[in-house]
């Protein structure tokens, strides 16, 4: 399976994603510079975390207009697997591939810490190796992860079971206190209606190896491989 990691000026988790795909998943991977206009030959795309364009104006806004984006959007519309992590999630929102928008964390502070995530849907290419309602520990590191959408969109997300991860306490309760940024309905990650595009604020690539304190993130990325190879369905 061949992954593409899209690199925007200011991306800074690109090398981390590359490392995990290559060294931990053992799959093929290449960088895709944002000025390219084709994603031919890739089976899955990763929009990595970081501060594309310095996060100036709005997080992800300038990157969402990059030359690579039309090809990426077409790839997604044809059913290709796309995962946006942190800044990647923000870019997917700005590009309209996922509904909603990001606001500043309610604390107004950048927050870097491990959080608990409840797995809300396992019938996606990103969670097929996980259990429903399983609680994962995955790090976050962001200043704008306060997911917002209006009530209609929220209802739709719930109706279509597009909410994939929520912030929760250790027991899986989606409490206000467990929410690190004020996001609506404790949302940490969502998929599109077709379920092939995931955006999530936490960083699975930061917890894919035991030396970094945990492997819960590994299963998210490994799910993509299993799904692609037909082992999940």
């Amino acid at each position, binding site marked *: 399976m061949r992954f593409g990691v899209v690199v925007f*000026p*200011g*991306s*800074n*988790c690109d*090398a*981390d994603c590359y*490392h*995990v795909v290559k*060294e931990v998943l053992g799959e093929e991977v290449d960088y895709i*510079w944002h000025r390219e206009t084709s994603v031919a030959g890739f089976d899955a795309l990763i929009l990595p*975390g*970081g*501060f594309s*364009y*310095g*996060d*100036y104006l709005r997080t992800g806004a300038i990157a969402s207009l990059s030359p690579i984006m039309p090809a990426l959007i077409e790839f997604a519309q044809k059913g290709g697997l796309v995962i946006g992590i942190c800044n990647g999630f923000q870019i997917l929102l700005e590009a309209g591939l996922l509904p909603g928008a990001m606001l500043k964390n309610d604390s107004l*502070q*950048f*927050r*870097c*810490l491990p959080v608990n995530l409840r797995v809300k849907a396992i019938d996606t290419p990103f969670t097929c190796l996980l259990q429903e309602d399983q609680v994962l520990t995955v*790090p976050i*590191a962001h*200043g704008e992860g306060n997911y917002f959408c209006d009530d209609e969109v929220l209802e739709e997300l719930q109706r279509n079971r597009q909410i994939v991860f929520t912030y929760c306490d250790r027991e899986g309760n989606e409490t206000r206190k467990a929410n690190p940024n004020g996001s609506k309905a404790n949302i940490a990650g969502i998929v599109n209606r077709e379920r092939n595009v995931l955006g999530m604020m936490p*960083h699975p*690539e*930061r917890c894919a*190896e035991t*030396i*970094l*304190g945990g492997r819960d993130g590994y299963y998210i990325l490994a799910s993509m491989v299993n799904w692609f190879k037909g082992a999940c369905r």
Partner: protein
Amino acid sequence: MKDKPVWREMGLTDEEYAQIRNILGREPNYLELGMFAVMWSEHCGYKNSRPVLKLFPTSGPRVIQGPGENAGVVDIGDNQALVFKIESHNHPSAVEPYQGAATGVGGIVRDIFTMGARPIAILDSLRFGPIEDERVRYLFSGVVSGIGGYGNCLGIPTVAGEVYFEESYQGNPLVNAMCVGLANIDDIALAVAGEIGSPLMVVGAKTGRDGIHGATFASEELSEESADKRPSVQVGDPFMEKLLIEACLEIIREDLVFGMQDLGAAGLTSAVAEMAGKGDRGVEIDVLLVPRREEGMTPYEVMLSESQERMLICPKPGKEDRIREIFDKWGLDAAVIGRVTGDGIFRVKEGDQVAGEVPVAGLTKMCPVYYRQAEEPDYYREKKAFDPMSLPEPEDYNLALKQLLASPNIANKEWVYTQYDYQVMINTAIVPGKADAAVMRVKGHKKGVALTADGNGRMVFLDPFRGGMLAVCEAAQNLACTGAKPLALTNCLNFGNPEKPHVFWQFEQAVKGMAAAAKELEIPVVSGNVSFYNETNGEAIYPTPVVGMVGLIDDIEKRTDMAFKNDDDLILLIGG
């Protein structure tokens, strides 16, 4: 009109002015005088500290580069090296905490990638007045978010540091930032100018009027008027710096440059002079070729601007086009601003006009050196006579313990480090809060590196010699506790006004103490920074040397953090 001659306004003494006249054999013009003033400031010239700094042991089997370059370099095996340095940004942070701290991070990170190393970690050592004070809280939160705001955006983890609150830092907080880089030994680049005729290029941000005379600002005491020195504060652009890191490392990997130098304190003047000085070259630059952000800038302003996020590059012959291509890929402009010459003269032109002409050596090697007078202060003898046993025993030990734990100096620092991305680059194997040093893996190897920054101003105040020793020992112990062998250290010496004999005594004693410990433990000093004039209204801070140290763990699987692991494990106390 002015009651002071212009050189004194610029921070030069009458004798220094006479020396400059001697060097030139004539009166300097305003530009030339400005160039001397910044280069001969304490910040750039180390004129009050150089003789004392010679006391440090600086060599060892693993030292590849000791003090004198942008950063120190130590061998960690497998053709790899750690490149690291610590630096202060105290005064800018006192005036504008967010931008002051942010640009402090930006500056120290540039020192590291200038050397051809990929920055892999940032550490921060912070000191403020008592946290109950409203202004202190403003400074503290501004500094922390400034460090985070800049470092997080660069994608370099901030992995360790320290925070203290003490009366003595009320008006003059200390903000020291350290950066550690990892390099292939073959890729290490030094700040040297190339062959005669080689072009010099500037790349990165455009030059503006910001920060003119920042170097002299850093070498002055803070006073009520400092608030009016505000234009000295710059706004950082971490996004630009991130692009610079990637582009500069790319041109080094392709071996396209002779030398590279970041533009920091004293801007172009210092960068050009230092680069030329190392190769005994001269240099001719045209200020009209320097890309500017503002109209109507004078040669003086261009030469002394401290606009951030700029680099000076000396390309190898025929490599300019490839360099331009790489910079263009990253959306950066590179401009040729002049050439290396063989005459040892630093010539500044504005088009056809010569705006200034000074010998490079005059700015660098001939910077005056002062042997200040040291005098043991009275307080030292008084405090030494104090008998701790004269303190009453606490009536309630539980209460005493709780009070200790509630002290802001001992309390958990989570509020600080959770604002820093300490995990990006996925190397942090011991994260902040889990041990007294951070441990980073080196991808593809069994080994790991441990990093720490420590200091204790109160101890140094009470006994500068032993306090200096202690700073080195504490850092070494912090590393050892994670399973690392200490390799080398960098240091930031934060002191008051060295022209005061008791401050100079503190300085000299502390350095002697640090040097003694470094020798004994065989941990050489490979880089450092001196920050004098940390005073408010005549009152000096506690003498505060901060030690940044790196160590090596042969097998990272054997690293240890401080958590108790299993029931029934033994607890031993050693040393003491």
